């Protein structure tokens, strides 16, 4: 591994959790996490490139197995969205598909053992620091959640108009009595702030915590035979459980996206 300095638990974890950054400007804000950005873009490119490659040769006749797989995926997403979103799904369903596929692939980077990934990025890509899981970077999850949030505001305005939306902000959920306007608005404000926060932090927390637990277990495994045995067994259990978490978080993220879009389209 990163060799020269002495390997302590702190440096081990720190090494795995440090982003590869490049600076695009003076202030700290202009720091770009190159690893997050490139890994995410590459995964999206592979995932959507695959879908596009399959879809380009799609036939309405008897599908081959590849096409049947993609159709299963798309019909799964379409069914889920159909259950939540009543209306024209021409935008919301592809949005949900994008979210599901991309988040799933980014989460799935967690399946690669941390030290294997570190070996690859260190020795093959010659990068000392490279976080392989984009969704364990809060920037990614906030970017997704805030994009969805912005789309939600956009569709609120588009569907209900500025008047309708304002009316909804002040007159729901408690009623249209002028005395309740402030209360309604505060309630809605909390809701609109908490939506992107819970949306993004849920995904980030799950994936980040999953990584940390793997690292703690591998550190234990480095302490000797007993630690290796227990650490290995526990890591196996956690890895199996993690399969569920990875898919479940991607699914939840997609469902919440659909729910928020549905709420933007439906007036109360």
């Amino acid at each position, binding site marked *: 591994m990163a060799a020269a300095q002495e390997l302590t638990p702190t440096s081990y974890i720190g090494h795995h959790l440090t982003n590869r950054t490049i600076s*695009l*400007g003076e202030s*700290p*804000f*202009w*720091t*770009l*996490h190159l690893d*997050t*950005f490139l890994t*995410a*873009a590459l995964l*999206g490119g592979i995932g*959507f490139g695959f*879908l*596009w490659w399959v*879809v*380009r040769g*799609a*036939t*309405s*006749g008897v*599908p081959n197995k590849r*096409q049947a797989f*993609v*159709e299963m995926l*798309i*019909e799964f997403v*379409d069914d889920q969205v159909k259950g939540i979103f009543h209306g024209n799904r*021409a*935008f919301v*369903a*592809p*949005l949900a*598909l*994008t979210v599901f*596929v*991309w988040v799933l692939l980014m989460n799935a980077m967690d399946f690669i053992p941390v030290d294997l990934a570190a070996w690859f990025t260190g020795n093959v890509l010659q990068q000392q620091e490279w976080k392989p899981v*984009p969704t364990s*970077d*809060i*920037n*990614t999850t*906030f*970017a*997704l959640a*805030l*994009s969805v949030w912005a789309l939600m505001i956009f569709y609120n305005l588009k569907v209900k108009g500025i008047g309708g939306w304002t009316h909804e902000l002040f007159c729901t959920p408690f009623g249209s009595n002028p005395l309740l306007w402030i209360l309604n608005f505060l309630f809605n404000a909390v809701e609109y702030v908490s939506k992107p926060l819970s949306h993004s932090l849920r995904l980030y927390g799950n994936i980040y915590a999953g990584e940390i637990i793997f690292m703690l277990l591998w550190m234990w495994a480095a302490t000797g035979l007993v630690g290796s045995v227990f650490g290995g067994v526990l890591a196996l259990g956690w890895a199996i459980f993690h399969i569920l978490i990875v898919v479940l978080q991607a699914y939840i993220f997609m469902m919440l996206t659909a729910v928020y879009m549905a709420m933007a389209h439906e007036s109360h």
Partner: protein
Amino acid sequence: MNLNVTMIAQAVTFLVFIWFCKVLIWPHLIRAIEARQKQIADGLAAAEEGKQSLERSAKQADQAIARSRDRANEIVAQADMRASQMIEEAKSAAKSEGERLIAGAKAEIDQEVSRAKEILRTQVAALAVAGAEQILKREVDPKAHADMLAALQRQL
């Protein structure tokens, strides 16, 4: 946990992927799926149609068979009737032919009998003359008696 320009980069990437998905992936596959759904629905409808027309055909075939069976029975009955009729005709023809033959035979027999009687009559007459000749021998004048005998012969 530090928010920085990465977030914007990721958001832009996200929007690009959304666009890619919405424009290049989703419509094509949904179109294929819907076309197939339509094909399947059409196929099912055609199968239903086929089933119904099969039922109709089966009904028609049953009717045709029933009609044919009736007609066949009718023909057989007619044939039976005709056959017994012909037998009756043949019987009566044979009977009349037999009667005719019997009548002819009888007539022939009658003829034979009368001819035999004729011959017998002549022979009896000759015999009687011969016998009388033997009995009377000398006194009898054949010539005088011949007339008498001829008269007698005619009486027979």
